[in-house]
């Protein structure tokens, strides 16, 4: 049985850090191109903040696809619904929102964010049971029915709130910037980065340190085998779907505050960007999604600064370039 002992040392696989280094390289390349240190910091912080928000919105979608092969074009509905629901909480909490005390602001933001997550998550559960369950394994029908779901959600928001954009001003203490010499860093962007990092680290901890997380990762790689070990992947999937929807709702609130306005079609508008992120990252990979989101945001911000005319196509170009380099995304997990 000595053959099985495999005396030869197993080479530790080199950690694949090239994708993770891409944003850093991009930022360094941008350094001489951005004219001044202060504009470089502004652009980079803007990219990181925007990337984190997109990551929050996209992270659920990548797991949903990875785990069950479900193409959910309706994911944007949870973004918009989350943002709208938050306004319900901001109404009665208006005094705290306008206060200049950060504590007061957080006392309003926290319940609003939680409410948005709860409603988006619950909507996600309904969405999964009613729209997606009947069309498992049928991609064309998934696309049609989830797009239909998105349209119904958007139209419902129009019907309830009216067609106009709704202003969503930043709370008092989060307006303005931290000033360091001639460098200005918008306060809200710092908050967005912190929340994004918390979500990213939290997701990684769950995926790597808990049995549910192991099941999700195993299921993304080989759903059949997880079922053959005796686990109900569909139930797991419902849970992932709900958490992903809740995060999309949270991302919607954050995006709304970032833009200081919300609109019923905001979710649908963001979907192209989110799909690009998920595809760039590698379907099913949370780390890939995180890096993809930052890359997309960097290309948008740096590109918009250097070559404003290319702004519309820059993310498509990024996606093409990455897929030519790695056809299955930065960190491929699934074999699909």
């Amino acid at each position, binding site marked *: 049985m000595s053959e099985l002992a*495999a005396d030869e040392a197993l080479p530790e696989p080199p950690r694949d850090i090239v994708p993770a280094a891409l944003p850093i390289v991009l930022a360094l390349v941008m350094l001489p191109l951005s004219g001044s240190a202060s504009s470089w910091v502004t652009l980079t912080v803007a990219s990181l903040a925007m990337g984190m928000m997109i990551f929050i919105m996209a992270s659920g979608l990548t797991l949903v696809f990875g785990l069950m092969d479900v193409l959910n074009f309706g994911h944007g509905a949870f973004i918009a619904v989350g943002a709208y629901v938050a306004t319900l909480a901001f109404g009665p909490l208006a005094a705290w929102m306008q206060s200049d005390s950060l504590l007061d602001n957080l006392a309003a933001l926290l319940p609003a964010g939680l409410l948005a997550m709860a409603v988006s998550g619950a909507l996600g559960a309904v969405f999964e049971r009613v729209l997606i369950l009947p069309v498992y394994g049928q991609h064309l029908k998934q696309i049609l029915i989830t797009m239909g779901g998105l349209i119904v959600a958007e139209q419902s928001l129009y019907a309830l709130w009216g067609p106009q954009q709704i202003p969503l001003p930043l709370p008092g203490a989060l307006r303005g910037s931290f000033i360091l010499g001639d460098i200005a860093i918008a306060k809200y962007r710092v908050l967005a980065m912190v929340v994004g990092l918390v979500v990213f680290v939290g997701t990684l901890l769950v995926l790597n340190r808990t049995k549910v997380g192991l099941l999700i990762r195993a299921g993304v790689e080989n759903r059949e085998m997880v079922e053959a*070990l005796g686990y109900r992947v569909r139930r797991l999937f419902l849970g992932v779907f709900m958490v992903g929807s809740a995060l999309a709702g949270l991302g919607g609130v954050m995006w709304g505050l970032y833009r200081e306005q919300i609109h019923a079609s905001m979710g649908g508008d963001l979907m192209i960007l989110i799909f690009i992120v998920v595809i760039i990252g590698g379907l099913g990979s949370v780390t890939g999604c995180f890096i993809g989101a930052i890359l997309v945001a960097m290309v948008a911000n740096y590109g918009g600064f250097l070559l404003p005319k290319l702004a519309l196509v820059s993310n498509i170009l990024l996606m093409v370039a990455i897929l030519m380099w790695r056809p299955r995304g930065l960190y491929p997990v699934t074999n699909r």
Partner: protein
Amino acid sequence: MSDLLTLAGVHTHIGRYHILQGVDLTAREGRTTMLLGRNGAGKTTTLRTIMGLWPASSGTITLAGTRIEALATPDIATRGIGYVPETMAVFSDLTVKENLILAARTGPLDDAQLAWIFQFFPALKKFWLSSAGTLSGGQKQMLSIARAIVEPRKLLLIDEPTKGLAPAIVGALIDCLAEIKRRGATILLVEQNFRVAEAIGDDVAVMDNGRIMYTGDMPTLAANTALQEHFLGLSLEAHQ
């Protein structure tokens, strides 16, 4: 000796292909039943149908007296089946340890059981915290088998464990399957390598074109080269 698993008149369609065309098969308790047959005979499809990974379109599958053909895969598995698929299907992104944690469905890993497994799969101990994707083919096969035996199971379904393995490793695998057998496991083992089949099989079923063409006991088939050639033909020589 009672029948632990019985397939009666099982048909399976994959898409519009009619693959299993009335399979009748039993696996007797405490014995190792070899499922033999040429490439494409339907052996893998039979195991997948038992696991509910392909739905049987007609016929019955009975495990320990309970009909399971209409159950979903997780419910079939939790009735006490350990499955080692042809593709091994180790979770390459997870470590060896994590693969086994998931396989131990009912609770934490049992140290005594692990020690037993490490006895004949020492590589798994050595690479305990390495990701399964970095293992060699043979080591992956060990892990896949270890997953199926990390907790006691009524029935083990093992699909071509020696496929693609070096002859020396095949010998070691025979030893470990024999050891699992000695512990009283009931095994349904798909194998193209007659040397392996001969070494550990008690009963034999030979498949062709989606049907069972011959059943009997291993010593009879092993002793009768004419029978072997008739039912197994060239495929055996190709694997010698």
